[in-house]
């Protein structure tokens, strides 16, 4: 029997990979992809929770998370394009105008 623990461990691993990607990749697009990975980990938690608790709210939540992730990816990528036009690079080490 596959209990919720297995799914949670897997989701934690995915989330960990996503976090490491956000922290240690210099390419802005890679950072965005790692964020998507984290969102998917959360989706997995919701779906497995919904299955274990006999409630469909988890799946509806996943539906909304996917919607919001799509919007965020769209706007984020538009910003990446605008940044690239302005600065010629998407390397996070060079995009540091907001840093003091």
């Amino acid at each position, binding site marked *: *029997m*596959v209990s*919720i*623990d*297995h799914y*949670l*461990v897997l989701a*934690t*691993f*995915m989330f*960990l*990979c996503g976090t*490491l*990607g956000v*922290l*240690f*990749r*210099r390419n802005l*697009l*890679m950072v965005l*992809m*790692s964020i*998507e*990975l984290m969102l*998917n980990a959360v*989706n*997995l938690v919701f*779906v*497995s929770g919904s*299955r*274990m*608790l*006999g*409630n*469909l*709210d988890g*799946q*509806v939540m*996943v*539906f*909304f998370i*996917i*919607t*919001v*992730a*799509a*919007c965020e*990816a*769209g*706007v984020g*990528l*538009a910003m*990446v*394009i605008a940044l*690239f*036009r*302005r*600065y*010629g690079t*998407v390397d996070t080490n060079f995009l540091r105008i907001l840093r003091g």
Partner: protein
Amino acid sequence: MTQELVFLAFAALIALCSMMVILSRNAVVSAIYLVGDLFSLAGLYASMDAHFVAAIQVLVYAGAIVVLFMFVIMLLNLGPDQRQHLQVSAPEVGVLALTIIGFLVVGGMLLLGQPTGVTGPLTAEAIENAGGNTYTVGMVLFTKYLWPFELASMLILLAIIAAIVIAKKEQNKDGDTRRLAHG
């Protein structure tokens, strides 16, 4: 037995693809691994009888969002990540260590504790009898979550407009586009 085999297979795929997503040098190869990840995740959802979510996951996530990523990668024509001599500073090492420790703690807690929760009415059999996964998800979505659903559609509209405006080329007063000088 088959349930566990299926879970193991998909979980192995997901773990492998997740690691390769963050470890690949090339952004496009990372995107391909992300597609593999999302596809395996959809398979996992399907094995949990969440067919609607699985189909939506492939349709929207793997079939549209990652395509968008690839478009941007190809438009920006990025080369492989220049992997220089690894310049990690102390804060970054600290964060890395903390993250891994956090994962171990969470994993340990999960392996030791058993979650207890109230089991709701919609078990797998009840869903089957009520008309299938899509039907019941639709019923819940359009009755209990009607407001968030409508707000989500507004959000999508906002995101479309925002993306178009942000990514537009700058235009001169005469209306012809020019590229801004690189900063």
